[in-house]
């Protein structure tokens, strides 16, 4: 799972049926200290995140798994998603006894 900042929303009227009812957010991926990193992506929101919030999201196939109901993996229920916002970050604690070796987070 990776960190990102919510920077906006996307609206699409014509979309695949399993995407209906899902909020699509624009995310700017960041490192864990909040610095922007890489290209902007579109992710579905499962927790009610709003613009400006610091969130974490899951990539790849697991992005659509969190939308499935029950305990079965039903292919026709799977939304076409490659990123889903899984939670809103309240705080991050990084160790600093590492003399700058943690390139990504410090």
């Amino acid at each position: 799972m990776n960190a990102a900042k919510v920077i906006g929303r996307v609206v699409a009227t014509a979309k695949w049926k399993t995407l209906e009812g899902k909020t699509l957010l624009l995310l700017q991926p960041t490192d864990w200290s909040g610095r922007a990193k890489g290209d902007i992506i579109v992710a579905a929101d499962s927790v009610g995140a709003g613009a400006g919030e610091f969130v974490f999201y899951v990539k790849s196939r697991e992005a659509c798994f969190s939308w499935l109901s029950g305990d079965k993996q039903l292919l026709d229920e799977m939304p076409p998603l490659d990123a889903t916002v899984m939670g809103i970050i309240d705080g991050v604690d990084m160790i600093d006894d590492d003399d700058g070796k943690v390139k990504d987070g410090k």
Partner: protein
Amino acid sequence: MKICKVVGNVWATRKQACLNNHTLLLVAPYDTETGKTKGETVMAVDVVGAGKGNIVLVNDEGNSARGMLEQPVAGIRTVVCGIVDESLLDGKHRKFH
């Protein structure tokens, strides 16, 4: 699986139910030869009780993650599934705790 170092933790009140009661750790790929972290820091779910500074085994694959968490449809991919005691590479033993 990768050898990683636990470099931090994250707390979040609003999150998906599949993440409840699990520690969220930040892990960075770890080079056992140089003892330095390198590459991208990601968040992983802990199932073994690892803590900050530990050298751990991180599995980045969804099917086994769902198996370990016993949640068939959880949106979780990255799991800390072991704490490394020592490694042997090129005849060199390294102990990590």
